[in-house]
């Protein structure tokens, strides 16, 4: 029988000898006042450019879905080009372009080769579709019909039902509460005028950020950011969002649906991006359910009992506190047991956890740090986040150091301060073996 070498993990030594991977982030403002985040990555002849606006569904007001729809229609027409010409031009150049809307932001992302005969026309068209969009009635009608089909389809997708219900229940009348694409009723009511008005208010230089990562030098990056934002109106930053109110007591709901599994979540409000407690919460979450195999939830629910394929927990820090949630799916007959195990595991974790576990998870986070920044797309994701949420520029380098400094008390104190197991939301979609209590 072969013995494997036993490896010792010495954090102190790890800390002193391991040079932190450095990401040299540069930032400046364009003439129009748009923030630029830039990292030079010269090794591959490609570049990622993202234009991001504080124009997610949190800005919908009572026109749910208007932010998402506006983002969707970018690139469908400009005064110079129609839909087919635009899609052909991008495809001819081999560039990838896509837009995306969430609750906090809406963004358009372009990935291109850096050869000037490709990058120059690609950037020119990119600037045109974001700076001079035309919202055509016929295209809007077509996309509305497609979206309505998708929204109807959501009503038979248990995971989508669970997610919509989670936001609705946790956020009540807060701008985060409604689904990003809107609802059948609100989408039906949207008009071209609504999109134009939304664009005019939020797609402005002061409310935008440009992220550039790739094989373009600083001078080129400055020029690209100028060209991209030149035709945007100066405008104003979006107003601060209201603070959501946490639940004042435990809540539970079952949505009866004929799936073979029960889709389950246990949730409450978490923290906002930049909260000083986030480091301790993040480290604790990694241990509880954020790190896949080896996390406490995975051990208890999957490894010991075979109840699930996957279970995880996570904080989603946003402009204002995003959710903290634990999620899983299990056959209907084990829903009750899974619910109990999750709640016990959380309670036990918040009481105490072994020192050895803390050491292991620190080792994972510190040793694994280079993996978080080993590609242009990962770096672009991080620096866009750092800029958008006004985090310090040394956020990335600071991260492993913070992980190393945290003690068990720090972690437990942060969790006890923010997480309240007696005031959480339990949701299930499916046919769980749970007896409803008649009110």
């Amino acid at each position, binding site marked *: *029988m072969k013995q494997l070498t036993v490896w010792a993990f010495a954090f102190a030594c790890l800390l002193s000898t391991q040079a932190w991977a450095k990401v040299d982030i540069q930032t400046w403002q364009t003439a129009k006042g748009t923030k630029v985040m830039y990292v030079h990555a010269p090794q591959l002849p490609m570049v990622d450019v993202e234009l991001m606006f504080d124009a997610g569904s949190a800005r919908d007001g009572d026109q749910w879905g208007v932010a998402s729809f506006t983002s969707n229609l970018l690139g469908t027409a400009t005064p110079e080009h129609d839909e087919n010409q635009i899609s052909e031009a991008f495809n001819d150049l081999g560039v990838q372009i896509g837009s995306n809307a969430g609750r906090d932001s809406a963004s358009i992302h372009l990935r291109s080769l850096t050869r000037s005969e490709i990058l120059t026309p690609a950037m020119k068209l990119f600037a045109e579709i974001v700076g001079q969009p035309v919202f055509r009635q016929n295209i809007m009608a077509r996309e509305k019909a497609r979206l309505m*089909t*998708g929204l109807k389809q959501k009503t038979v997708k248990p995971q989508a039902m669970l997610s919509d219900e989670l936001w609705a229940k946790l956020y009540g009348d807060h701008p985060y509460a409604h689904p990003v694409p809107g609802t059948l009723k609100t989408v039906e009511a949207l008009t071209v005028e609504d999109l134009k008005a939304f664009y005019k208010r939020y797609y402005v230089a002061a409310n935008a950020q440009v992220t550039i990562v790739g094989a373009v030098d600083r001078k080129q990056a400055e020029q690209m950011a100028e060209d991209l934002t030149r035709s945007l109106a100066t405008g104003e930053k979006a107003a601060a969002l209201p603070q959501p109110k946490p639940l004042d007591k435990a809540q539970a709901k079952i949505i009866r649906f004929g799936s073979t599994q029960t889709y389950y979540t246990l949730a409450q409000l978490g923290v906002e991006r930049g909260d000083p407690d986030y480091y301790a919460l993040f480290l604790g979450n990694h241990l509880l359910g954020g790190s896949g195999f080896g996390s406490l939830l995975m051990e208890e629910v999957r490894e010991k009992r075979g109840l699930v394929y996957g279970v995880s927990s996570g904080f989603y820090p946003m402009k204002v506190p995003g959710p903290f949630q634990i999620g899983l799916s299990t056959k209907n007959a084990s829903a009750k047991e899974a619910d109990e195990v999750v709640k016990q595991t959380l309670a036990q974790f918040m009481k105490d956890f072994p020192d050895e576990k803390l050491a292991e998870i620190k080792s994972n986070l510190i040793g694994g740090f280079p993996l978080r920044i080993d590609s242009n797309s990962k770096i672009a994701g991080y620096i866009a986040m750092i800029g958008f949420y006004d985090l310090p520029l040394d956020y990335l380098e600071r991260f492993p150091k913070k992980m190393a400094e945290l003690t068990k008390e720090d972690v437990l104190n942060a969790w006890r301060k923010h997480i309240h197991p007696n005031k959480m939301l339990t949701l299930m979609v499916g046919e769980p073996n749970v007896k409803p209590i008649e009110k």
Partner: protein
Amino acid sequence: MVRIGLFGLVMALAWPAQASISKFKLDNGMQVLVKEDHRAPVVVQQVWYRVGSNYEYGGITGISHMLEHMMFKGTESLEPGEFSKVVSKLGGQDNAFTSNDYTAYYQVVGTQNLEKVMELESDRMRNLVIKDEEFQKERDVVTEERRWRVEDRPGSKLYELFKASAYVNSPQHHPVIGWMSDIRAYTVDDLQQWYQQWYAPNNATLVVVGDVDPKQVYEWAKRYYGAHKPETITPPKPRVEIEQEGERRIQMKGATKSPSLIMGFHAPSLVTAKDSQEVYALSVLNSVLDGGDSARLPRHLVRGSKVAVSAGASYDETSRLESLFMVNITPSEGKTLKEAEAALWEQIEQLQQQPISEDELKRVLAQSEAQYVFHQDSIQSQAMILGSLVSIGLPTETYDNWVENLRQVTPEAVQAVAKKYLTRDKVTVATLLPNGEGVQTPSVPVMEGGVR
């Protein structure tokens, strides 16, 4: 468990190769491929076994995938789950996936930890311990995985049914995860046998991509993997798919609001084709239909006639057995499945009647060329391509010569393969219809919340 073809993951193509691939062979027959990428102090190790669902037969379908799960459950020197814990302590990520043609295990770690994960991976190549108690629990996990992936997703169920209809006697008839009743009936003996039979150095390929020195990797490979004895590998018996002699149709009802349809045609792959240029022509054809927003299906069916809310095509050029050329469509509201299907046929017939334009051909090449550079942003996808090619018996250069081969494709060649393969007598059509199920209202029972 994932299914990968070059298509869908990435499309490789000819571009001056950035880094050469170092190839070694150990005395016991194990292949070693190393590609340097020094952009970050990180490395990925993947070990690929030439076994997957296409090696299985009735009664034990999905066993390759079940074994993949058991590979994390301990060896003669490691406790169940300890493998992943060690990798996690190193700051690494690890996982595995099973496909039709291969099963692969991978770790991504800081460069300084490569030797350690090579030692760990070589240990479980031959020293796995399958305990009944662990197996019982893990089998439950796999049934949950099947529920999550397939049972509650009508679209996935339809695809399963479609494959089972398109393939009658080929092992591609059954899903990678296996049928539920087979999953429930595995024994520890079945797994033990499967492990013994296929998990051997001469049936495996080691792929390492990242911040490494190939010579050093080769030395470690000799030390760790080279210690194992080879097995006699008996390839599975040929189960060549019977000739299709007429259209096949199948229908399924499920919890969906929108009906949808999948159509597929038997087509060669780079492994099975007599003339590989046919495969490159089919690859171009696939991109002409569904390579970006300007491609024909989104352009004509979603935006033009508006007959569909979505329409797409897919084709796996790198399958070890015969491949399928597939198209799918979801009709717009107010349009029938019949109209949607007719619209697909109309697109196919156009391809058969007229050559594609030079512009379309150029567009496919431009996208492929860019894609080749883009995929190098990830050490994982670079390793994936190498491992998957070698595991189905294709040369590693397949990848570097991809675009060169696409360049040889003429509009007439695309027309010719459209005529030859996309025929009405060789089609399998699977349709999904709503079963009328939805949420049962009212649904607001309350139970006790909070932690007990």
